[in-house]
């Protein structure tokens, strides 16, 4: 599903964010990417979203070599990937329903499909009753669930989550991780970048640890502790 071959990224300032990265994630996997600040995790997410171009190497996602992709094809590519951020990134001036529906409008889904699919996905994340609310009226955990609903509404094959529990208390963090686990069980490939040691240790998923732009360990059913 996601294949990185000898990928390096050097910023214009000369700092090497990612060095000679080789990474293969198969369809249906649940993967944690862990590491300290500056380890290259966020750069990796940006490379996968094609927000950044690698300095060298190739990135193939769902059979598409995105390093050779033309600019005008980027929106189509991004529709195949759901993405969730630490700060939720919801449109603050739109209702929960509109935030989720927005992702469908972007792909020009028919009105009937939007009316059917949005309540369905809000129900899945447990927010069916709050579709009229605005982001500021929700708790952090609820906002992150809206972001997940938005990421999943178009049924992407991959879900990228960049520190999804970074702004949440332990209870809400677990709710979100359980939701991501559920999404994964339904067949979506899930890649979670996180600092949350407790969650990584308890979930027993594949853990890829990064340090100074390199992968320093890659273990099935690994733990955060292994990286130190």
């Amino acid at each position: 599903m996601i294949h990185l071959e000898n990928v390096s990224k050097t910023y214009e300032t000369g700092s090497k964010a990612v060095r000679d990265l080789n990474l293969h994630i198969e369809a249906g996997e649940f993967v944690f990417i862990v590491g300290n600040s500056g380890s290259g995790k966020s750069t990796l997410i940006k490379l996968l979203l094609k927000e950044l171009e690698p300095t060298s190497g190739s990135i193939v996602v769902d059979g598409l070599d995105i390093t050779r992709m033309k600019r005008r094809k980027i929106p189509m590519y991004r529709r195949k990937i759901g993405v969730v951020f630490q700060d939720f990134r919801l449109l603050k001036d739109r209702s929960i329903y509109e935030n989720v529906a927005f992702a469908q409008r972007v792909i020009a889904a028919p009105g009937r499909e939007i009316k059917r699919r949005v309540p369905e996905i809000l129900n899945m994340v447990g927010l069916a009753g709050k579709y009229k609310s605005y982001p500021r009226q929700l708790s952090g955990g609820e906002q992150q669930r809206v972001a997940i609903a938005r990421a999943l509404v178009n049924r992407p094959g991959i879900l990228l989550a960049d520190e999804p529990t970074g702004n949440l208390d332990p209870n809400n963090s677990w709710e979100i991780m359980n939701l991501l686990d559920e999404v994964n069980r339904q067949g979506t490939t899930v890649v979670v970048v996180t600092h949350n040691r407790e969650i990584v240790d308890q979930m027993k998923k594949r853990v890829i640890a990064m340090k100074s732009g390199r992968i320093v360990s890659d273990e099935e059913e690994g733990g955060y502790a292994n990286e130190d």
Partner: protein
Amino acid sequence: MRISTFFYCIRQGMQNIIRNKLFSLASIGTICASVFLLGIFYSIVVNFNNIIREAETKVGITIFFDKDISYDQARMEEIAAQIEKRIEVQSMVFISAEQAWEHYKDKYFEGRPEMAEGFAQDNPLAASASYEIYLNNVEDQTEFVEYLKEIPGIRRINYSEMAVRGLVSVNKIITYVSAVIVTVLIFVAIFLITNTIGLSISVRREEIRIMRLIGATKFFIRQPFIVEGILIGLIGAGIPLAVIYYIYMNVVSYVVERLKLLSGLIVFLPVHQIMSILIPAALALGVGIGFFGSIFSVRKHLRA
């Protein structure tokens, strides 16, 4: 593009104006102020030009004929016909010796008609039948006078070099000054408005970023902003147009009412004539600035 997407973009554009009330008001306000200034300035300049043009039409050349011709209507008409053929000539008015005397009497013997009675049977201006010639463009006067001098049978040519020079130079000054002021005003307006629209879009760069990350095409992101820009331009141009219409009507009727003495000198253009130019120009300016302002501002955020 789906028709529903098209309407969604329009709806979003309208909602954006309401969602970003403050910036929308700032943009509309800037366009209003610019269009208002331009409109007022335009109204003043065209009226001024009109007054000058009116004055120009009143500057004429008077020709008198040799004595023998002055008594021969057919000869005078022959010469007049020859002159009237020239393209410079706008109109010619014949003033007979009798009319000249009547005019003279009214002017110099006003209130003392008995003094003029001595001349009742003997018109002292008998040889003063004349033609007043009005030109299309007073700037041609000097050359035209040279032409008239060459025509046999013309005894005397009356014209005012000074009046013509004054009008021509005033006209030129107005044209140049108004061109400079209008250009400066338009540039200031474009600068202010694109800045305001740019600012209102840059506070929404996060929104644009989110749209891009969930796979919105540039077209889809841009459309609502363009609709918003056009609507702001329309509102921003519409309001000052209505205000200018109201002010113009009132100022004209006030001036006409109060300054009746000047009514012969100052003739205001009718409001519909002013508006027939001002409405399309202001709307085009408002909509154009709104349209291009949003395109350029959004483009900046779509590059990455």
